[in-house]
């Protein structure tokens, strides 16, 4: 095996470990998702938008830079930071199953800090369970699966399935495109439903 390919293998493992860090620490995941959404940001932006203390913000940003998932895009002060794209596919040895760790999953984990439904779900089912729920959330918005099918497959109550699907809906709409389905209020043939009468 050539030197360069050995090195590339090492990069993959490094990415894998960095991403595992993100998935274990919702604050880091939240920061990564923020940078991915903003494009570029300064530590001052992070402090203001994520409501972090200055020391905490610097420490988190530096950790993400050290692990390689965030890069410095402008070295002059104030420094600008940007998220590096994450797209890591994990395959089982049998080769029959694979899962791609996407920014959507990191975003979902990051929302644990601010969304009690996601927090509760991770408490009960772990980040691995959340990854599964996210797959169902995408399929449901595509009209391929219902909350009841998810509940049956995962042996949880239909209500618990609906709660996590709704909690993840903003995440999947942020990261994927869907065709609009079903009628909205304007298409209902109902009196003048919104008049103040």
């Amino acid at each position, binding site marked *: 095996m050539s030197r360069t390919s050995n090195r590339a293998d090492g990069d993959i493992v490094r990415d894998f470990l960095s991403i595992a860090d993100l998935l274990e620490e919702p604050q880091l995941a939240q920061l990564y998702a923020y940078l991915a959404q903003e494009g570029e940001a300064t530590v001052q932006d992070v402090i203001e938008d994520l409501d972090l203390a200055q020391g905490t913000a610097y420490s988190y940003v530096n950790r993400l830079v050290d692990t390689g998932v965030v890069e410095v895009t402008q070295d002059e002060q104030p420094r600008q930071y940007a998220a590096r794209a994450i797209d890591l596919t994990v395959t089982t040895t049998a080769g029959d199953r694979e899962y791609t760790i996407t920014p959507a999953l990191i975003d979902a984990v990051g929302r644990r800090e601010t969304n009690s439904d996601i927090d509760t779900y991770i408490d009960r089912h772990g980040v691995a369970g959340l990854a599964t729920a996210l797959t169902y959330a995408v399929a449901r918005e595509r009209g391929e699966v219902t*909350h009841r*099918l998810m509940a049956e497959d995962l042996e949880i109550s239909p209500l618990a399935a609906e709660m996590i699907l*709704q909690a993840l809906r903003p995440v999947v709409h942020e990261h994927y495109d869907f065709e609009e389905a079903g009628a*909205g209020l304007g298409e209902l043939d109902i*009196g003048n439903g919104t008049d103040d009468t």
Partner: protein
Amino acid sequence: MSQLHIADTGLFVAMGQPSNSRYQAVRQFARRNDITFVLPERVYEELTVDDLDIEAPPVDDAIDEGWATVAAPLEFSEPIVSRAMDGVQRYIANADERPADEVERADAALAALAAQHLSAGMVTEVYIYTTDIAAGEGAETVLASEGYGDSVTFVNGFRFIEDLVSNRS
């Protein structure tokens, strides 16, 4: 012209608690238009399940306030009711490439309830409010094949509530 408004679990989850502006917007909509949301029995059972991790959606509040009610059991002796049931189960199974007998019957209960009321001539228009696109589109498709294409509308529960809330603000 009489209408039937069938609500699925997701609509009540999406409203939040009674202190939430989404809940209040739906209640105001129901009251102004003299609408009572009808829940299939299975939907009511889902919403009132005993799960310590979950704050129960306020379906009993809505029932007490008079703008939601639980439907009587489905009349499976009516052929159209069982046909609607089977049809929607097949539709959803097909969307997810799984056997129809694995599809939860509550998904199909929305369409079956609509079919029962339409065929009895009790209503001329049915709105099905759900957050499950497969269930909503399945109901529209199957009831269209029964000749009720113009009488059934799948209302996307999320869009409906978002529209109501943005109208209020």
